[in-house]
């Protein structure tokens, strides 16, 4: 997408001077040039402002005497990483996060694939109300239902269990995942399945052997988005999990660095990097493979 845009821009830049409008010609070109300069400078300026907070985390993590200001380290060191790379600070919360978010994302994907298939292919009476409910729920503020969810979890004896939290997280990821999955499956022509049906394959067989191989890229996009969203989620595990040994990285980063009066900022920065690492890598993989971010923009723009 970016490539085609660049191509179009280059093309129009070439074409415009030859337009037969001699009187406005110079002002036209000058205005266009000013707009181009403004656009480039504008993007660079925003990027420069946006990057300052990011620079802090990068530089402080390798600084032995890190403070709160962005500054080049006076003593380069990896000690900050060494200090936080311990089972109770990093390894266990990260593993908890992988189990919690990985399990929830997997559950979301399985349920969303099945539901997306049904919504894309079948003409049943459930379809319209179901789809409208799904779309409606994508907008509900999950934060708001955390108090009632806590109450429900206490009554169901699910509080402080990884499995219960996993099920809840899977449910919160479902509406958006189902909506995306339905759209991906809509793009697969139904004639492919009809061929399989005439050969006697069942619905589930065609889903598995015909549809899934075709929508695999779409599924991986939904999976990664779901996982990234859950990995970053603070409030849900913060409310539903209580024991320190069950907390995922999103909560342990908070509890670890808020329980001491004097925060070791270098270690905080190092831990932030370790915790953000997986989502950044997954996201890079996604955007490289599919132009993911832009495809995502297209999916939600309506």
């Amino acid at each position, binding site marked *: 997408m970016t490539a085609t845009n660049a191509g179009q821009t280059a093309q129009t830049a070439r074409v415009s001077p030859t337009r037969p409008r001699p009187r406005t010609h110079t002002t036209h070109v000058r205005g266009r040039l000013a707009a181009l300069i403004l656009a480039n400078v504008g993007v660079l300026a925003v990027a420069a402002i946006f990057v300052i907070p990011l620079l802090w985390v990068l530089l402080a993590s390798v600084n032995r005497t890190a403070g709160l200001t962005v500054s080049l380290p006076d003593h380069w060191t990896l000690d900050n990483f060494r200090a936080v790379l311990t089972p109770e600070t990093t390894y266990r919360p990260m593993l908890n996060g992988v189990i919690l978010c990985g399990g929830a994302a997997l559950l979301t994907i399985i349920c969303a694939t099945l539901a997306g298939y049904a919504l894309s292919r079948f003409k049943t009476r459930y379809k319209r109300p179901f789809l409208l409910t799904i779309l409606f729920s994508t907008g509900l503020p999950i934060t708001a239902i955390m108090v009632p969810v806590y109450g429900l979890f206490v009554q169901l004896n699910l509080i402080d269990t990884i499995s219960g939290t996993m099920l*809840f997280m899977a449910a919160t990821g479902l509406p958006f995942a189902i909506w995306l999955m339905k759209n991906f499956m809509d793009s697969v022509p139904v004639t492919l399945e009809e061929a399989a049906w005439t050969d006697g394959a069942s619905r589930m067989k065609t889903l598995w052997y015909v549809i899934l191989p075709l929508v695999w890229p779409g599924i991986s996009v939904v999976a990664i988005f779901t996982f990234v969203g859950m990995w970053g989620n603070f409030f849900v595990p913060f409310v539903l999990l209580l024991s320190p040994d069950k907390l995922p990285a999103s909560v342990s980063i908070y509890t670890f660095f808020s329980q001491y009066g004097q925060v070791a900022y270098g270690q905080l920065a190092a831990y932030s990097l370790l915790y953000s690492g997986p989502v950044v890598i997954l996201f890079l993989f996604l955007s490289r493979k599919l132009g993911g971010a832009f495809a995502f923009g297209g999916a939600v723009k309506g």
Partner: protein
Amino acid sequence: MTTAPPAKLKRAVGQGAPLGPAAVLLLVFLFGPILWSVYAAFTNASLSGAGAAASHFVGLANFKKAFAADGFYNSVVLTLVFTLISAIIGQNALGLMLALWMRKSLRFVRALGGAVVIGAWVLPEVVAGYLWYAFLAKDGSLNHVLSGLGLGTQDWLFSLPIVAVSIANIWRGTAFSMLVYSAALSDIPLEIEEAAQVDGASGWRRLVSITLPMIRRSIMTNLMLITLQTLSVFGLIFTMTRGGPGTKSQTLPLYMYEQAFSFGNLGYGTAIAIMLLLVGAVFSLIYLRALDVDTR
């Protein structure tokens, strides 16, 4: 249903079956809590004391308490300010501006700008909270820059907490609007703008009369979505200020959290939750209308 022939019934069940697992999860864990909250908001349920052992029906007491509480009004106003500054003005306008500029900018400028802005979006909210805490703190980068320029410094998280968290939320959320608007703008043929340009329309004029009307549906959708997202922001504010100093950055979700979990008033917290949900539901319905989705 009972009069339907067995074959037809079987088919209906077979076609509904793939919806089963998703429907069960949604019913139990999403709509279950919402229904439970409709009940609990009218009780005196609490984490400890009499309400913990056996809660009982208290009618509209929780809602009356909310509308009489200064803390509630304070958080409603702060939520409105936070949403207005950070979502409706900040993320929306900056996202649109970036999307417009990126159409005209050089390839590497676009790649660089996109990477930084999207990077801010991808980072977990707790990390974003810490980054902005470091940037705005008393001995943070902003004050360092300001004193370097000979300007006065202050503890931004103490003097202007709601503005501080709003700016952090702009930083974190702008990428979303930028992506939505980039996708929308890529659907507008460049010829249309060129034609207007040849006819002598200025840049501003073209934006207001051609570009914005053509993407107005995306603008509507985007405004709905970012408003809903901003209403739910918790971790970012909680890590930056914990709603403080005092209650000066305590938006509704933080007020709800404090009432329900720090003070143990589960019933009262649920009443706040219901009100927040209702606001979300209204926005969500408008969003559904705006989408005008074809579900047939």
